[in-house]
């Protein structure tokens, strides 16, 4: 019998731990941001989300957002995210993947 001992090639990851945002109990009076990264079809999906939200939760308001940087997909910069956070209580996004 022969034995081959080898070393593990996989690197350890830098650990990060960010607590998710606290969720509200319902949608009453909430403003929902609809974020599109501009990949095809995502806008159509968000149109439908907006219709369904308004049908099911009267009084809800919405706002549309795309990132200020990027090309065939656009991203929110930290500044964009801060602005969205100031006006929205929650966000639905499409990235198309």
């Amino acid at each position, binding site marked *: 019998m*022969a034995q081959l001992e080898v070393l593990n090639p996989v690197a350890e990851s830098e650990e990060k731990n960010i607590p998710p945002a606290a969720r509200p109990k*319902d949608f009453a009076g909430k403003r929902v941001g609809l*974020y599109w990264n501009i990949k095809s079809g995502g806008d159509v999906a968000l149109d439908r989300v907006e219709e369904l939200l308004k049908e099911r939760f009267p009084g809800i308001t919405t706002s549309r957002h795309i990132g200020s940087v990027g090309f065939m997909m656009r991203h929110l910069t930290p500044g964009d995210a801060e602005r969205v956070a100031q006006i929205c209580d929650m966000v639905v996004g*499409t990235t198309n993947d």
Partner: protein
Amino acid sequence: MVELEKQGVPTVIFTAQAFVKDARQSAKTFGIRNLPLAVVPLPFSNQSGESIRKMVDDGFDQITAGLTRAVSESEAEPEEVAASSESIDCGPMGCELTPHDAFQVREERLIYDGRDLLEACALMNRKFLEYGWGDGFPLVPPTSGNVEAMLQGTRRPPDEVVVVLEPGFGQATVKKIAINAVMAGCLPEHMPVLIAAIKCLAKPEMYLRNKAMSTGPHAPLMVINGPLARTLKINSGTCALGPGAASAVNTVLGRALRLIMMNIGHTYPGISDMDTIGSPTKYSLCVAENESRSPWEPYHVSKGYSQEDSTVTIHFVYGLCELYDFANSVPERLVEVYATATKNVAQLSTGNWVLGRRSDPRYGTQEMEHNFMLICPEHAQVFDKAGWSRKDLQEAMYKAARMPFKTLMLNKESKALDAAHPELRWLYDNPEVLVPVVEVPVCFEIAVVGGNAGRGTYFYGAGGPVTVPIED
């Protein structure tokens, strides 16, 4: 979305079934386990409006739940991950590969038994593939002895973290680089090249996360310049991109970089590398510039380094096209032929500048889309005899590589153009106007490579190249 969660805003994101593992892994590396997803059967692209609306209707309850139900921070795998990604789709005739969890095997030392060492080595190879640690070709066993020998190729201590590599934020210690170099078949003297290459990958302007995780076939083209390329016998001439004995060093360097992306950066196919079809260029793609046959200053000198410096340039590229021309001996005609290769709208980067620039919002980087031209020495001489510099060729390419706006926009989202360049909206009313396929002339990168015939290679690029010196 992680950025919004950090700011206290609940989010939920639509994710196609095949991308659930990818989305989970991605959110986890950024620090949020179990980021709420609304899982839909397919990506929204290429779907009819009716089909998209139906997917939203069917998945709408996941939206409301994701925004109003507390998010578990448990380490247990959420149900939709287990349910949605039991196997990687290898097609009806392909293997039914169960996705591994490459991170579950934590032991630093692994032992394989066999009737002899060859059998033990075969078992090691099978297990490494099962864990997702291999590229499909046989691996050289990273024994302690092999790794110790590899570490002699650098003065850096084994535990030094050279960089942290995206997308998995893997800590690239010198030892882990050496282990992967052994597996690829490298020699100790290759270590300084690999250390430079991994530094290149980790530069913020490389935006590795985007290229490593994409659905597109992004392959890291390594171009080596300077004296070390000659010392290490990196092929710059006949069949420089391989295969064969003459390109053996090119092959193992390119292969090591791929294994490093996988095992250190955690770019695993089907898990975090979501390439739709893949590409043979992703196995290995390394070349040296044929500086002795180039009429121009070496490529790295054009980037500000001295002739005595040795450098690694990495440029992520998509597909490639031959630059064949045996017929012409005047530069204008060669440029005309080359320009036909650039006008391929089925290639993502062609004319993409009208939609903006590839940008990493975390670092504020912006990349123009460059393409890499490996010009053969025969053609380079044609330009030189006519007194053309590299810059002259770039400018001539910029003028020749144009296509009608309406063709350029065939596969592009017009709202993206509206967002990036509202001043160009006049083009909608002038669809026949010829538009350059790149933003500026320097987006044509040019190096001289190859043997004795009028055949070069044009790489459609993803973003821009990054060059770093090989130091240690």
